[in-house]
């Protein structure tokens, strides 16, 4: 329960509600480093030896073994028969390629060692994401080695009603024969996700033409409102690109454009480009119902109901057009008629806020950006505002380089279901979507699919949809196949294979070409003998580009010059305001919001361990989904964190644990989709619950937000693996109530920064009882700008991929044994209801006066002559003193041989992803961030071989290379011209826990919020409004 007194003892920045309310249990854990329990390895099934017995026995046998001189088992060296000219053992190869993830397209560079893809970085030449990556794009390298993948085509033997089941292997020829027979009978439908590949799109179109098939496009996460609202307001359905870097004032209403919506990586980059403190710094104002990453980055954030998105936007339009009478739309009677209806509507927000926001928007006209929610009404309202504010064509790019995704419509899926039910469609080919899992139960796709004579699925495993299909013909992994993508108009990128297909798979394009040839030998694409030939011809003929150069660059940017320009605004059709379902949404006691998470999105990569153990950037929970509820409502309904409730939406029911989420609207519940996969593999199966079936369909469109819902509490409790608060930085004042007052996050308003750039920063004193280290050559350092860090956590997975970091599984995350070397701490400030949030990436600080080094009894952690704090695994005996003494809590202990112990989490061929440059750590060894010492070594080696000095920026750490906003900069601080030295001159930079005099090599720049007043935690629930 939250005590109202003691507020003066409350930390200004808090990690969790437990810390906020000074929970005694929490305080106890804050002081103990390890959750000690007499754990036995036998608990998890390794050999059945208890750990202590094991040590005893080992002690005895070690003594004997040391005299035995037994050589390790012989290793084999198997050289190539014919070495490919580009492969040199020990030297990585890089391939420019493309990765498409739902609506997002990335240009990527795949690093291969000895022919195995092991790591992915962004392609700096690619205009969409540049060097930036997301956690998912990083993790898709592991999905290549997913042990759950199907290793050849299979057939499901089923009876008419498809109630029994037996899966057998088939060969491609037999499958092709059977399929082409059936295709000849007509009644063919193809169901795909939005295809951003021009070649595949063209091929599907031609296939449809030559076989008389009908194409249906449907996406798991997008209901089409964005494009349809464009069509309603402006006459043409497009998916405009958000030109965030031109926006000085961004108003997002229930729109997570920095987290999961549209092209978040590109949008984050654009957002960050205007976050340099100064008169020109942009402002992000967010109205939202659940807490999203966008809300966490807001300068000002307001809580609204999920159904109030349109109301808020229309009210602002009312302020502008009626109260202030600005813009040419102020005289438009048709617009005014609708807008005037919003005169008194406030959506629970003070009137002054609207007036202030409207003023600021008008001041920034032509350089603001308004984003609406997932319903048509709010999208049309956002269109109106963008037209009023003259943003259309400037920050909303509808013609030069708009997005190519979001082609799916719910109406298309319903039409397919209808045709399946009526028997018009006899054969259905499903590619890139998993509707049995992700379509709402109300649509009845499963029953319809059973009526198909022949269902063909091209997924990579017999998953939920595959189970109901007659054939599952596995497609290649994107890293194994040729393809292309035009994520945004004119930005054409090529996807090239980086490894030979691991299994007996065949690309979807090749399958279509084969079937086409069998049915209609003289079809329009008959001259292509493979899909690869199609892709290549597309590049050489359509784009007139050199094939080799295209493969080198990975991208052809035909709109480079135009992307920066602006267009004339389109005419806003006032009729669209009436067309939308304004005011029609009923407001329930609890409005449920279905949202995708940054890690799992649509659940397609649910069997990738990295993504399951990826702490959600907002809630910091992994390995589960949960029903989020506001702190006040949990109090009112007497709900505890982790208490299981029965959620009811319509007639559908679901048991799900509660997570109390600060910043959530009191009448709103949030539930993540993408979890609860039933047939995905050992890792992802039955993690969390599947929320997709609960999504209702209203007016032919899935409704993801504002869904009326009820819940009843049960007595059962489920522990949620919430990693926030596991690693507590406390500093000197760890005793008593002032815990957390040390210099961890520093924040200032823009005005405060303008008067004093070092606001709130306590500088390092020069006094020290230690003799300083001497760095004659390089001195590596890092600068992290909290103003740029959005908390997206791409770096966490980049680090995991680069440094062979183990996954420990849910049960051990609960025991606080996560292994991530870099963690993103999410701090709240203000009261529990309306807090502001900050994200801070914390890795090993590589202190000059490192507390860990002095306590190691075996000198396993030592300082090197370039400022790195080295961790020598083979010397470590596992006393864990170093971790105890580390104030930043960045050291991770290998309690077990994680890889060997958890066969369900680490199974063959996942070991093929391991980076050979980094030691795989064993049981009993401490590990931590090394500032990617292997990359430093590689960079220095390359420079030496070429007889030159190391160039600044040549060596990048994995976290730095993946950061979409360039918030992390690594380099040589001894070089006065290096970027990091230049950055560190900024007075905003400070050291974490400066009072401890550890003198870290990693420095942070304070967060500058473009707001009037910073939030404090004096208040209880209310307040926070202007």
């Amino acid at each position, binding site marked *: 329960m939250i005590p109202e007194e003691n507020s003066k003892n409350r930390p200004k920045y808090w990690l969790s509600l437990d810390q906020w309310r000074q929970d005694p249990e929490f305080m106890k854990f804050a002081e103990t480093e390890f959750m000690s329990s007499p754990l036995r390895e036998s608990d998890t099934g390794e050999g059945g030896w208890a750990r202590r017995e094991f040590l005893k026995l080992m002690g005895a046998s070690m003594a004997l073994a040391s005299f035995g*001189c037994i*050589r*390790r088992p*012989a*290793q*084999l*060296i*198997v*050289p*190539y*028969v*014919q*070495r490919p000219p580009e492969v*040199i*053992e*020990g*030297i990585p190869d890089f391939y420019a390629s493309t990765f498409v993830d739902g609506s997002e397209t990335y240009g990527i560079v795949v690093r291969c060692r000895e022919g195995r893809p092991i790591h992915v970085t962004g392609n700096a030449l690619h205009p969409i994401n540049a060097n930036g990556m997301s956690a998912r794009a990083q993790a898709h390298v592991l999905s290549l080695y997913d042990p759950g993948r199907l290793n050849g085509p299979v057939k499901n033997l089923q009876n008419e009603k498809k109630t029994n089941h037996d899966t057998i292997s088939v060969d491609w020829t037999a499958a092709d024969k059977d399929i082409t027979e059936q295709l000849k009978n007509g009644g063919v439908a193809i169901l795909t996700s939005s295809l951003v590949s021009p070649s595949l799109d063209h091929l599907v179109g031609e296939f449809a033409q030559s076989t008389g098939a009908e194409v249906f496009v449907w996406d798991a996460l997008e209901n089409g409102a964005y494009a349809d609202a464009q069509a309603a307001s402006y006459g043409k359905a497009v998916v405009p690109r958000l030109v965030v870097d031109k926006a000085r004032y961004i108003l997002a209403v229930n729109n997570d454009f920095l987290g999961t919506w549209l092209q978040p990586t590109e949008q984050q980059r654009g957002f960050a480009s205007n976050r340099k403190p100064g008169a020109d710094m942009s402002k992000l104002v967010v109205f939202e119902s659940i807490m999203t990453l966008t809300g966490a980055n807001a300068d000002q954030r307001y809580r609204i109901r999920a159904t109030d998105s349109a109301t808020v936007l229309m009210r602002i339009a009312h302020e502008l057009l009626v109260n202030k009478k600005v813009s040419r739309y102020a005289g438009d009677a048709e617009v005014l008629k609708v807008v005037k209806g919003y005169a008194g509507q406030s959506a629970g927000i003070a009137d002054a806020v609207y007036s202030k926001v409207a003023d600021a928007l008008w001041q920034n006209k032509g350089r603001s950006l308004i984003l609406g929610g997932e319903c048509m009404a709010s999208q049309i309202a956002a269109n109106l505002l963008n037209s009023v504010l003259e943003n259309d064509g400037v920050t909303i790019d509808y013609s030069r380089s708009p997005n190519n995704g979001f082609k799916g419509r719910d109406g298309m899926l319903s039409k397919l279901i209808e045709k399946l039910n009526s028997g018009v469609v006899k054969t259905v080919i499903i590619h890139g979507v998993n509707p049995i899992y992700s379509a709402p139960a109300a649509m009845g796709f499963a029953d319809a699919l059973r009526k198909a004579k022949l269902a063909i699925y091209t997924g990579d495993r017999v998953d939920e949809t595959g189970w109901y299909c007659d054939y599952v013909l596995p497609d290649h992994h994107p890293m194994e196949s040729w393809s292309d993508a035009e994520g945004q108009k004119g930005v054409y990128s090529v996807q090239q294979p980086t490894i030979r297909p691991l299994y007996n798979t065949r690309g979807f394009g090749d399958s279509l070409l084969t079937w086409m040839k069998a049915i209609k030998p003289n079809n329009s694409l008959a001259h292509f003998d493979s899909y690869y030939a199609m892709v290549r011809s597309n590049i050489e003929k359509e784009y007139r580009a050199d094939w080799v150069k295209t493969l080198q660059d990975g991208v052809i940017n035909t709109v480079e010059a135009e992307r920066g320009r602006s267009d004339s605004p389109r005419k806003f059709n006032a009729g669209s305001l009436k067309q939308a379902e304004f005011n029609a949404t009923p407001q329930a006691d609890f409005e449920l919001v279905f949202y995708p998470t940054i890690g799992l999105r649509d659940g397609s990569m649910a069997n990738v361990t990295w993504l399951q153990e990826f702490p959600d950037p907002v809630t910091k929970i992994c390995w589960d989904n949960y029903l989020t509820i506001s702190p006040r409502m949990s109090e009112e309904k007497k709900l505890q964190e982790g208490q299981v409730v029965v959620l009811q939406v319509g007639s559908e029911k679901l048991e799900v644990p509660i997570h109390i989420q600060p910043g959530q609207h009191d009448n709103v519940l949030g539930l993540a989709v993408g979890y609860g996969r039933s047939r995905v593999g050992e890792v992802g199966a039955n993690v969390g619950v599947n929320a997709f079936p609960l999504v209702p369909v209203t007016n032919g469109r899935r409704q993801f937000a504002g869904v009326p819902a009820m819940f009843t509490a049960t007595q059962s409790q489920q522990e949620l693996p919430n990693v926030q608060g596991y690693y507590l930085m406390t500093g000197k004042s760890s005793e008593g109530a002032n815990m957390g007052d040390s210099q961890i996050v520093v924040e200032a308003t823009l005005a405060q920064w303008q008067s004093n750039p070092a606001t709130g920063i306590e500088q390092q004193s020069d006094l020290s009882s230690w003799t300083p280290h001497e760095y004659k050559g390089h001195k590596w350092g890092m600068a992290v700008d909290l103003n740029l860090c959005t908390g997206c956590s791409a770096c966490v997975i980049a680090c995991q991929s680069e440094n062979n970091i183990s996954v420990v599984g849910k049960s051990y995350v609960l025991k606080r044994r996560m292994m991530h070397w870099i963690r993103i701490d999410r701090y709240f400030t203000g009261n529990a209801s309306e807090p502001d949030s900050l994200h801070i990436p914390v890795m090993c600080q590589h202190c000059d006066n490192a507390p860990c080094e002095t306590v190691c009894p075996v000198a396993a952690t*030592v300082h*090197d*002559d370039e400022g*790195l704090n*080295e961790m*020598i*695994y*083979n*010397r470590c005996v596992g006393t864990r003193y170093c971790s105890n003494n580390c104030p930043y809590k960045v050291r991770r202990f290998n309690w077990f041989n994680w890889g060997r112990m958890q066969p369900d989490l680490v199974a063959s061929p996942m070991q093929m992803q391991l980076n050979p*440059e*980094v*030691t*795989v750590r064993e049981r009993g060894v401490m590990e931590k961030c*090394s500032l990617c*010492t*292997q990359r430093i*070594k590689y960079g220095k*080696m390359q420079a*030496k*071989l070429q007889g030159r000095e190391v160039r600044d920026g040549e060596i990048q750490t994995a976290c730095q290379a993946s950061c979409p906003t360039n918030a992390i900069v690594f380099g040589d601080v001894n070089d006065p011209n290096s970027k990091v030295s230049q950055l560190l001159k900024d007075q905003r930079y400070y050291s974490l826990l400066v009072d401890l005099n550890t003198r870290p090599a990693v420095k942070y720049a304070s967060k500058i919020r473009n707001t009037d007043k910073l939030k404090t935690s004096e208040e209880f629930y209310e307040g926070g409004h202007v």
Partner: protein
Amino acid sequence: MIHQSVKQIIGAIIGLGVAIGLCVFVYLMTNNKIVFGYDIGYQPTQPIPFSHKVHAGKLGINCKYCHTTAEISRHATVPPLNVCMNCHIQVRSYEGKPNPWIDKVVQSYNSKTPIKWVRVHMLPDFVKFNHAPHILAGKQCQDCHGPVQEMDVMKQWAPLSMGWCVNCHRKPENHAPTTCGTCHL
């Protein structure tokens, strides 16, 4: 009483002797004066008894003709069969007599079956050795691998122990780094 004290003195001398002996032993061990347990002379049976003595010694083929990547990569690499075939496409006999091992090389190449050599120089996984900087610093292959040109079948010549590495890195003339992270990362 005297008897007792003599006993004590003898005991002390023995104790001291053992202590000094132990110290000397540890000193010699850590300074590579006594070396055991490092598999010096390890000479596993190879699928083909490839003779460095013939190739490098008698024929005088440069090491880097086969171990092409030693200058640029962490691995010197065992050559792929296509390198063997550069000569053995012609050379099918040894000293005028047909040689079954050469036949095996040709066969393997033609049937695209790689030869599985047994690794001689093994370092633990936590040691990241890199050939390139050593060659760059002017080290000869023989400095670490011994008189390879005299070996009929490859064997381990040096202890490859940490002490052996460090002793060389420590010499001022080598300008070699001695921080732990040089090899352990």
